[in-house]
Every structure is written in C-alpha cells, then in structure tokens.
C-alpha cells in the first residue's frame, strides 16, 4: 500500500467558515421568523388516521367534514394515496372518532380507523421545555467529558460542531416546512451522538499526532490527522446512510421524518467533524503545549 496522501483540508478553511456561517445565518433566520412546524406531540390537538381501499380525495373529505360541523379540520394524505390524516383542535370527546368515521363512510366505502391521537396542550408545552432542556444538558455533559478526557480547546471545538449540526438540521426542517415531532427530536439527539462520535475520533487522532510529530505546524498536524481518518469517516457515514436510506424508503410514514433528520444530520456531522471542530481549535491556537500531559502509554496493554 502506498504512503498516505495528505490533503490540505485546512487550506480552504476560510471558505468553510464562510459556508458554515451562511448556513447558520439562513437556518437561524428561518427558525426565528417562521419557526418549526410542530407536530401533534408538541402542539397538542387531535389527529385521526384512516385507511381507504381506493385512493381518497382529501378536498372532498374536508368539505364533508366541514358540512358535518367539524371546526376547520386539516385533511391530508399520509404516506399513501389511500391513507388520510385528519387533524383537529380540541379533545376527542366521547365518540368523536366514531362521528368522524361515520361522516367518512357515507358513500358506503370501506374505511379503516388506524390511529387516534390526542395530546393535551399542557403535555405539548412540557415536552417542548424538556426537549430543549435535554439538548442543553446533553451538550453540557459532553463538553465536560471531552474537557476531562482531552482538553478545553477540543471540548469547545466539539460542542460548537454539535451546536452547528443541530441548528442546521433544525434549519432545514424549518425551511422545508417538515413536521417536527417527538421522533425528530430523538433523531436530533441521535445526530448529536453521531456527530460527536465523528468529532471524537478525529480529535483523538489530532491529539495523538500532536504528541508524536514534533516538527510540524498545528495546521500540518491537523491536515495529516484528517487525512488519516478520512476513509474511516467516509466509510462509517456510508454504512449509516445506507441503513437510513432503508428506513427512509421502507420504514413507513411514521419514521419518515426521523430518517430525514438523521440523513441531514449525518451529512452535516461528517462535514463538521472535518471542518468545524478543527477550525475552531486552530482559531484558539491549539498547540503541542496544550497536550503535554504525563499520560504516556495510556493504552492499557491487556485490553483486546
């Protein structure tokens, strides 16, 4: 096998900064001005999913429901032409599902009641708070762990990379008006986990090389480290994306957005572990001196 080719990743870091800054600004603007399309889990309300045997006409169903006295129902296709999702404000009182069902069944068509969800407004609000709080706790704990295991500059780099990934993923959801529900929140946290995984592996190599290579500038050390880990980064991203594609195409409508969020996150996470974390470290003048700890031979020999 030939000697490893070292790519000059950090040579174009100025462009990366501009690119990331642009993405962040667009995402933040979209999040600030139009926010997220909150799913039922967070917004509260009632939602009913029904399945027809024939493709259903949603406009017709909407009119039917309005004529029957339901207050501004939202009627959309859910996944397939034959599946319909009806969303309403308010609690499903006794027999609401049956009443809707009866309205939908007038023409003697076979309708199957697949799902009824009701989430009270207080639950939605709590989930929003808990979700935000959980995200911040996760970031804080991770920052602490990386600071202890590595060094503060690495830690700041890692957390900024994570924040970058989360904001951009949320930004895409806001821009594309995709629905943000509990599974998407779980996906975002999984993105945090994934992107962190990547960043840690890269940081680990940077630390190792700082200790090993004595006569090199920080930029050279980082370039070499990134090049060494490049194939690993790409291969892992590919395997993860492969399974996400499987989920996206055949996983069903309920985890559609989950798969989308993770695919965006894995893409952005791969980019950020190369550019964001390392660029932040360089901006803080990371150096050999930062890592001269007396931890020589920290690899435990007996471990497999």
């Amino acid at each position: 096998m030939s000697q490893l080719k070292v790519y000059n990743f950090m040579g174009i870091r100025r462009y990366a900064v501009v690119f990331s800054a642009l993405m962040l600004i667009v995402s933040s603007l979209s999040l600030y001005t139009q926010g997220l399309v909150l799913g039922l889990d967070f917004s509260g309300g009632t939602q009913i999913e029904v399945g027809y045997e024939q493709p259903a006409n949603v406009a017709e169903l909407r009119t039917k429901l309005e004529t029957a006295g339901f207050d501004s129902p939202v009627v959309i296709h859910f996944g397939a032409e034959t599946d319909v999702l009806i969303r309403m404000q308010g609690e499903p009182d006794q027999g609401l599902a049956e009443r809707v069902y009866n309205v939908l069944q007038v023409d003697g068509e076979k309708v199957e009641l697949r799902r009824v969800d009701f989430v009270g407004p207080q639950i939605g609000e709590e989930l929003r708070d808990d979700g935000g709080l959980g995200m911040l706790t996760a970031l804080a704990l991770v920052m602490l762990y990386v600071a202890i295991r590595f060094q503060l500059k690495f830690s700041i780099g890692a957390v900024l990379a994570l924040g970058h990934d989360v904001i951009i993923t949320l930004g895409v959801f806001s821009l594309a008006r995709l629905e943000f529900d509990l599974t998407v929140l779980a996906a975002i946290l999984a993105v945090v986990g994934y992107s962190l995984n990547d960043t840690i592996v890269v940081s680990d190599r940077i630390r190792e090389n700082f200790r090993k290579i004595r006569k090199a500038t920080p930029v050279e050390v980082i370039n070499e480290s990134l090049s060494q880990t490049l194939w690993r980064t790409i291969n892992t991203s590919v395997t993860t994306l492969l399974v996400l594609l499987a989920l996206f195409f055949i996983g069903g409508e309920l985890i559609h957005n989950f798969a989308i969020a993770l695919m965006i996150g894995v893409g952005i996470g791969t980019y950020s572990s190369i550019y964001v974390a390392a660029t932040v470290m360089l901006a803080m003048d990371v150096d050999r001196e930062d890592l001269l700890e007396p931890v020589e031979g920290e690899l435990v020999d007996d471990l497999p």
Partner: protein
Amino acid sequence: MPNKFPLWKNLLVLLVISFGFIYAAPNLYPPDPAIQLSGQSGAMVIDEVVLQKVEGALDEAGIEYFAGEADGESALIRLRDIDLQLRAKEIIQAEMGGNYIVALNLAPTTPEWLSDLGGQPMKLGLDLSGGVHFLLEVDLNAALATRLESDLQDVKSALREERIRYRTFELKGQQLIGQFREAEEVDRATALIRANYRDLQPQFIQGQNPLSLVLKLSDIAAGDIEDNAIKQNLTSLRNRVNELGVSEPLVSRQGKNRIVVELPGVQDTAEAKRIIGKTANLEFRLESLDKAGEKFKFRNPSGQGPDARLQNKAVISGENVTDARASFDENGRPQVNITLDAKGGWQMGYATRDNIGRRLGVLFIEYKTRLDKSVDENGEVVITAVPFVEKNIISLATIQAQLGKQFRITGLDGQRESSELALLLRAGALAAPMYIVEERTIGPSLGADNIELGVKSVTLGMMMVLLFMLAVYKGFGVFANIALAMNLVLLVAFMSLLGATLTLPGIAGIVLTVGMAVDANVLIFSRIREELASGSSIQGAISSGYDRAFVSILDANITTLIVALILFLIGSGPVQGFAVTLSIGILTSMFTSIVMTRGFVNLIIGGRKIEKLWI
C-alpha cells in the same frame, strides 16, 4: 505468542455467543392466538369444569382449539386460526355470561427448557401491538381542598364545644383562616389545634384587626393526602380496566400527579375510552322537598328520566360503594344490587330511616376538559384546557324501606341499563378528579403494518451494510459481518431478557445501531491498513491496530451513551424505546466489534506466517 487469546478469553467469547442465541431464541416462536377467561371477582374458581364448558361451546361452533389449561384463577384456550379469535370470544362470553371476563390474548409458545432458563420473547409496544394509551392528570389541589373542607367543619365544631368564640372561619385557597376578637381566644384555639389536629399548622398573624389565625396543612400531611389520592385513583382505575377484559393491562403512576394506562390489543377502543375516560364520582342524595337544593338533569341521552331537585348534602359518596352488580329480581326484571362499606351502610341507614317514601337520587359527577381558544397579548392563538364538572342524575328511586349495607335499585328499563348503572357505580370511587391529557389509539392493523415495515427495513439495511463491508474490507469484512450479525442477536437477547419493550422508534434504533456498530471495525481495520502501509509486520499491524483504535472507540461510545441516557430521561414511551435500544446496541457492539472479531482474527490468522493480509 502474538495475537493469541488465552483460553479464558476464547471461552468468554463462546459463552457470550451461546448466551445470545439462547435468549434471542424465544422470539423465533410466534405466539398463538388465545382466549383468556377469568372471573369478575377473585373468589370465583375457574377449573377444569369451567374449561370443559368453554370447550363444549367452541366445539359446537366448530372453532378449532388446543391446549386448554385452567389453574383455578384463570383459563387459557389456544386457537388455530387468529381470524376466529373475535368470534370465539363472543361465543365464550355468550356461553359463560357477564360474571366472567373474556379477553383476547397472545399466548407465548416458548419451549419449556427456554422458559426454565428465564427466556421470554420481547414485549411489543403499543405502536406494534395496537391498543390504547391514556395519560391522566390527577387534580391534587382538589384532593387537598376536599380534606381542608372536612377539617374546617371539624375545627369549627371543636371550637364551639370548647366555647372558644370566633367571628368567622373559612377556607381560602390552600389554607383555613379564622378571625377572632380576643387575643386570649386565639391562644386557646391555637393550643386546641396543636393538641388535636397535628396535620394543621396554626400561625398567628400579628398586628391585624380582627386577629387572624391561619391554618396550613403540614408538608408531610399534604404529601400523604396527595399520595393517597393517587393510590386510590390507581386502584379504581385498575378495577375499571379489569372490567374491560384486557390480558396485560398497565396502570401505573408517572411523575408526581399523572397516571398512565396502557391497554395492548384492545379492539373496541371506543368502549375502552368510555370506561377509562369516565373520571367520575358518585353521590347518593335525597330529593329535596322544597325549593332548596339544586336541580339536575337526568343523564339518559334520550331524556327519559325526569329532572329532579336534590338536596345539597350527600348521604354517601362513591368511596363507600364496595360492589354493585346487575341481576334480575324474582319477576325477571333488571335490578342492581349494591353493597356499601360499614360507614356507608350506617350513614345510609340513618338517612333513610325517617324518609321512607321519599326518593333517593344517585348523582353522577364527571370531570371533563374543554379546550378554549383565546388570543394572548402577542396576538397568538393560545389553547387552554379548561376543566369543568358535569353533574347528572343516573338513578332516582323511591325508598321502600330503611336501607343498610346491602340494598337494590329496581325499576330499570332493561338489562343494558342495569349493567351500565352497575358499572358506573362500581367505577365511581375516585379520591380526586382526573383529566385525560394524552390519548393514543393504534388500530391492530397499523401495529401489524409497523412490525412488517420494521423487519423489512432492518433486513434491507443490514444486507446493504454487509455487502458494503465485504466490498471494502474483503476478508476482514467477513469478520466484521459476523460481528454485526452477532450484535443483532445479542441486542435482541438483552432486550428480551431485560423485558424491554420494542417500539417502532426502537426498531429505528436497532437499524441505526446496525449502521453505527460497524464504525468500531472500520476504525480498527483502517488502523491496521495504516500500520501495514507504514511497514509493520502483519502480526504487529493487527495487534497495534486493535490497541490504538481502542481509545478512540471507547471515547466515542461513552459520549454517545451519555446522549442516549439523556434521551431516556427526557423522553416518554416510544422515544425511551429508542434510547434503550441505542444504549444496549452501543454496549453489545463494543463487545462484538472489539473482542469478538479479535477472537476470530486470532483464531484464524494469529501466530501464523502469512504473506499478505486480505484487508
């Protein structure tokens, strides 16, 4: 010798592999559709005789069954055809009558030797099995207010008995406030309350005119009341759930003031909601003879019953009802037999002794929530939940004699009405009002669809990753692939053993674990390639490749585990399922991709002279 495992390590790998296969195995046996039969009360014996009667009915209807078993408390009959399950239930219910609970069930078919080892199949979450999920919020302030109201009456009469004069004494918010003229009266009242009412903490507000004494419930007492309220609500909810005949219902407390109810496999969701959602209480009140009291509507939707004016004071309430059963009187007309507890029986006797000929009403009190739309100061539409109370008469009957612990209500329209009334009476006892704050109903077909989609996506995702690893890492790809497959087996084994629930997001977690689990092997193999490229010997490259990659893998996985843990703490239901699978997946993948692949590599390559590594 380089790259040789000591014997114990090889044995460990072997042990873990067999552990994985044994505990994952129960999931390979598909459950049988079954019917479960149990009694309405624990006293009923369900033995072989009952079983034979049931089997006779099934024979007559031509439904195939096998392996019927009865253990005295319940009976289980397995069916050949799942499509006949509903019909079998109807037939058995018709045969056995209303005193038996007949529930649809899925009976595990785990072989005996496996279940002896503690093996069991994974539990399926509601989104996979279908069913109903309710989250109910208990209004604890109402429970405290009820208690303070009754304390207030006690304190007032105690003060009167002791001839301590007060101007007013009333309930304001969460405290009782008394007003006095003389400081000496305040001192005596304080002493009396300190001595007799330990739960109330008196506090004298200095320098006010009139002199005020504030009584608050101590924190311990308030905590006890809240705990009791939740416990009693849990009990009556469990009773109601039992009425439904669900094979494995879950009723448990969640957080400080919430109760979660999960009914897997319920087909008739409307019925479930009707009974669970009935957050209700009962009061027996005499009809008032004059204009005093309050007028209530009759609950019957067809408006058959008359409206009536009932007294403000209740004779007894739902807490005192211990049992209510629908049956028929000697003339074959429907009636409801009611049993009260001792205190309720005494109060009922006292109240009815002098009132024979008057009418006694049963008031059904329902706590409901209405969602109101309003516009806040920012011009945004906000939706607030406004709880409200609905009180209706469900029965109004003339008192024929002095009533005691046991009495009956007659003059009902039909069997349907009598069983409904009996159900409402039994279900009535709630210590504090509850409101439904979340409800999810998943149809059985959607659950089955979800399982199918999940299995498909796991299979497809897995296949693609296996092919990719083979293409990229050739011979070592085989090691990684065996590790990956083993990881899936171990993940399933641990989830089954821990009794973790599999949900749709949980399946997504498994799929994601499959994608990410190869990361450790990718790291190791990349390292080995690097070491080879820098001129290390083959055995040396393998050894240092594994060692060097270990630190990265450990750091990366611990941080991901932190994230999964937080996900578990903040998430609910399905999301927790995702967090659980993700965490278990991280741990098992570390074992399979580091220890297990190393074992294979050592076994095949270790200690041999090899010209070229196929990596």
